[in-house]
């Protein structure tokens, strides 16, 4: 069936134990459970099955991480067809780490959704909702684990198509969810099609689709116009999916009108996954040497990263709705990650990768908190949030912790990534960027302050009673909020993984996967 190959010392053997099948199990479990939920059609079984599948994914990705944490790689050949002709799944430390992050956030959000989903999606749709959630999870993990360029597109579309439907589920709250989903569908499909055109050009020039093989062959023909055009198409296509400024127009509406658990899941994983693919194509497939030849970094990435940091922070400040504010702030935070890429150094990429993780858990916590407010007061506009700091003390305290992490207050996860980003700017001698990072953080203070002001300084509406969400909903929220504190104080795991990823990326070789 399949064989597992370690690159350092190639040993071919037929997989006999379940442990050798872990890479495919990672994908198969949620992929099979999704239709199972639909065909069983029993509403009571939907949540337990979905949660079980996501927990099993966490288990398999932890086992995978344990196997590759020493720097080895797993190459899994689908159907026993050897790469570069067959499709291959590649797992290394960074890869497994991202898989664990995605399946972990999915489990936390699903745990929250058991009670929290009822407020936003009617119960008759729950079984289909969980099935789509698992399909989305399948797609996200498939994109991360695969080592085949066209396979990336297929998994990308599996996750995107289910995302469009999940966003449209917000229609039970507000009909604008339909148009938000429709616009995302148009933009997302244009992005995905650009990506396929890029892959097609690469195949024309190189005759292969395997990522490691592509990297070898691209290195020989940097000045080939077809390769350069392919690069442009792939960067723009994935930029649309990752909502990089100025390709972010679908994002604020989609995040505002989607159900909160969906946004918590997507903001923590989907845009991060797109950014991960972008990194992998820019640095592992096209190699840093190629990036130095094209005028992408100075001409496009740096200016737009700076504009994103300011323009989106200002528009976040102007919002009157917490959910909308957080959506705009996501675009601004993506600006920091792009700035890390734009600095084009080891430290800069470390900042990008660590911010990818830290911002993922921070935003997931904030959006789950929004979900708690929607559960109790039916909305998240600042008007409705007034005085909730007193009536919902536990939710609000967790929100404040996550909000501080969004600003980058010392002791929180957000501080670690911004600190490294400032270091990277100083390393290059560009103190002006360090100054701009601090300046935009002040804007972040301003927009997070509006949330705290509404929660704590405004008096609650008359007759408001102390009304906290159930403990089982607070638990995942606090787990995420406390993890932002944990990763702010103990940076060994995240910083170590980010540094390993950055050296892999900068050296360009297949070190990243």
């Amino acid at each position: 069936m399949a064989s597992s190959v370690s690159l350092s010392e190639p040993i071919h053997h037929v997989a006999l134990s379940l442990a050798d099948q872990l890479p495919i199990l990672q994908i198969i479990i949620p992929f099979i459970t999704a239709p199972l939920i639909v065909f069983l059609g029993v509403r009571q079984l939907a949540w337990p099955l979905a949660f079980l599948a996501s927990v099993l994914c966490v288990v398999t990705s932890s086992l995978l991480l344990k196997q590759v944490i020493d720097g080895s790689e797993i190459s899994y050949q689908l159907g026993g067809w050897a790469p570069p002709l067959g499709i291959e799944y590649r797992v290394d430390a960074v890869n497994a780490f991202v898989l664990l992050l995605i399946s972990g956030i999915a489990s936390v959000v699903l745990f929250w959704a058991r009670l929290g989903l009822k407020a936003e999606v009617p119960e008759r749709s729950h079984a289909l909702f969980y099935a789509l959630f698992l399909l989305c999870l399948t797609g996200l993990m498939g994109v991360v684990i695969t080592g085949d360029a066209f396979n990336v597109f297929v998994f990308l579309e599996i996750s995107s198509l289910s995302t469009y439907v999940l966003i449209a589920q917000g229609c039970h709250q507000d009909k604008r969810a339909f148009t938000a989903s429709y616009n995302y569908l148009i933009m997302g499909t244009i992005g995905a099609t650009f990506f396929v055109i890029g892959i097609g050009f690469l195949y024309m020039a190189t005759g292969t689709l395997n990522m490691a093989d592509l990297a070898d062959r691209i290195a020989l023909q940097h000045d080939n116009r077809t390769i350069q055009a392919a690069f442009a198409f792939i960067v723009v296509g994935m930029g649309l999916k990752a909502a990089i400024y100025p390709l972010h127009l679908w994002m604020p509406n989609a995040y505002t009108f989607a159900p909160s658990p969906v946004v918590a899941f997507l903001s923590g994983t989907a845009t991060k996954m797109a950014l991960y693919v972008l990194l992998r194509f820019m640095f592992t497939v096209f190699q840093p040497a190629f990036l130095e030849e094209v005028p992408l970094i100075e001409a496009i990435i740096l200016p737009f990263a700076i504009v994103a940091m300011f323009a989106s922070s200002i528009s976040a400040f102007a919002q009157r709705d917490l959910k909308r504010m957080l959506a705009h702030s996501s675009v601004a935070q993506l600006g920091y990650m792009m700035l890390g890429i734009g600095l084009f150094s080891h430290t800069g990429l470390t900042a990008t990768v660590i911010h990818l993780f830290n911002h993922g858990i921070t935003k997931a916590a904030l959006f789950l908190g929004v979900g708690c407010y929607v559960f109790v007061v039916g909305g998240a506009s600042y008007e409705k949030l007034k005085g909730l700091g007193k009536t919902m003390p536990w939710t609000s305290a967790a929100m404040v912790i996550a909000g501080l992490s969004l600003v980058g207050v010392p002791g929180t996860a957000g501080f670690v990534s911004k600190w490294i980003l400032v270091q990277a700017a100083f390393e290059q001698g560009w103190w002006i960027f360090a100054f701009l990072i601090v300046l935009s953080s002040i804007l972040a203070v301003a927009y997070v302050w509006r949330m705290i002001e509404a929660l704590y300084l405004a008096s609650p509406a008359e007759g408001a009673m102390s009304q906290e969400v159930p403990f089982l909903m607070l638990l995942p929220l606090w787990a995420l909020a406390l993890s932002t504190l944990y990763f702010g104080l103990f940076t060994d795991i995240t910083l170590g993984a980010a540094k390993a990823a950055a050296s892999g990326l900068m050296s360009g070789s297949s070190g990243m996967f």
Partner: protein
Amino acid sequence: MVEFFTSDFVLGRLNYWFFIFLMMTGLYIVIARSNLVKKIVGLNIFQTSVFMLYISIGKVSGGTAPIFPIDMNIDPNVVYSNPLPHVLILTAIVVGIATTSLGLALMVRIRESYHTIEEHEIAEQEQEIMRKELGLAKEGEV
């Protein structure tokens, strides 16, 4: 001028020119039209152009259909076209169908709740909702 159009640059790569023309047409329709159905049609043309690109890649000059004879007596002199891009595009076609049907389904629901499929009319209605929300917020502050 005439030489340019009969040259290898145009006639020799005719299918690529068609690909570029269709791609630009599709993208233009998506951006310029405000009717939601027309946008989906434009998106479809855009995606179909990519199918043409891939199928053109698979062509090997003088190559025949990549099907081996049933008795597997393969003549080494026969040149076959590359079947891989065709297989890839089968997947992309399926993705395209799923996207189109989902887009149309969303459009049906948009029509049910907005009673129109013209983008600018929907935008007007959404601005109206925004104004109401803002108005409510203002009243609350007073």
